[in-house]
């Protein structure tokens, strides 16, 4: 059950969480917050999938 939950976290962050982060400040690496949030989660996605893969191996 842990694997689907882990995998769902970035999807939730990139969909239903978006109205909560729909603002400009604080800036993230110069980007408006909304864009920084999205880019950050896209780049974190490999880490989540890698963890899922590690759990699968066990």
């Amino acid at each position, binding site marked *: 059950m842990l694997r689907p939950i882990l995998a769902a976290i970035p999807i939730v962050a*990139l969909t*239903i969480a*978006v109205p909560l982060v*729909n603002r*400009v400040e604080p800036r993230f690496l110069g980007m408006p917050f909304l864009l920084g949030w999205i*880019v950050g989660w896209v*780049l974190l996605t490999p880490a989540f*999938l890698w963890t899922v893969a590690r759990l699968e191996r066990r």
Partner: protein
Amino acid sequence: MSGSPVALIVVAAVVLGTIVFALIGVHRVKMDPAQYIVGGRSFGTIFLWVLLAGEIYTTFTFLGIAGLSYSQGAPAFYVMAYGATAYIIGYFLTPAIWRVGKEQGLLTGADFFETRFGSRALGVGVAVLQFLMIVPYVALQLSGLQILLGIAGYGAYNATASVAIAFLVLALFVFGTGLRGTAWASVVKDLFVLGGVSFAGIAIPTRFFGSPSAMFDRVLALHPQMLVLAHGAAYHGTIWFISTVLLSGIGFFMGPQSWNAVFSARSGDTLRRNAMLLPLYQGFLTLMIFAGFSAALIARGLKGTAVDQSFLLVVQRYYPAWILGLICSAGALAALVPASALLLAAASVITKNVAGTFGIATSDRARTGLTRALVLVVAVLALGFWITSQRTVVELLLLYYNGITQFAPGAVATFLWPRATALGVGSGIAAGLLVAVPLAALNISPLGINAGLIGLAANVAALVIVSVATRPRVSATAPSIEAVS
């Protein structure tokens, strides 16, 4: 502005160089249908990554992200979000599909539906629909190519003829090399796109504003509303954003060319590693958002479809011809390489799932020959379609995106709900298309929700109701995603 042919010469040299490179890459590979259509199921992680990146990121990713950032701002961020969503879904779904493909010797998406639901009618139906969706999508790539060649020629040449020539050369290339050729061409395409995107997203804002961060300061001062989404059900508001990210993420791997690519993998783990690595490429495309916002500050006032040219016009006006040539080369390859994968996908579903079903071309040799001939037929059809209906192509793109997603419920049901029947899946696809396509064509999005997602709901409802009402197949065995992973 000058009529200098330098930029066009650079583009022609790069495109021809790519073709020669790919021809060397496929040198002496013996072609049977499995080799021609799915590369002999032998692609490793890196080669598959290059192929997937090569066919996923088309000229409209390249031009469209910048264009949408230019004209609307924050709604363009959805492209980043749906990519990551799609790869997470793909992490679980594509290895399961690959496994079925390997065990049953499948080559196309329509094969999958035919085999899993034991229905030739469903296979033929899916094949015909996929074929119909591909033709406008190829035509769209040609429109992108026309924009690029027009700009590379500084508006002094009629680009239509050069588009036709470039495209027919491409069709001959696919005729000769199949999926392996597309993968080799993707190697060059990805390098050029990475270079072009870095230039557009870093060099342009740095030259004009000092840094990307300073560029955003200017956007914030002049057009603050561009950096956030409108609220709730408003046009391109947060509800639109969420529903579009979900829709695009679910439909992502359902394009006919994606099935070929999934089956070309060497193993399920190859696909899992790709799902992990592709978000990095997606993150890189953030730079095209930078390019679009920069163009919005530098060259205001473009309207309609001209917004797709926004950052290219900046390059054309402020940079030397050879730089424009290299950027346009990246864009031209981003049109031609995915188009080559699309031609092959369209030809292979017709050979395998329509001709094969009616007893035509049953030997391996005849199949390879027919697929090759059909590549040329599809190319001519797409070219004719493009020349006669240029203006409506963008609207027909809606058919593609809303259409391919409707294959997802059936594909997922084979793993999660074995009770699904062929008639149920067929009804689901029909219901989904009947709801999504008219809504999308009329630009209606109830409560701000993307029409495709409403079609998807109708699809699932019809799939469940009709499946329950029809007799289950005798051998309804379906391994779960867990079991095959």
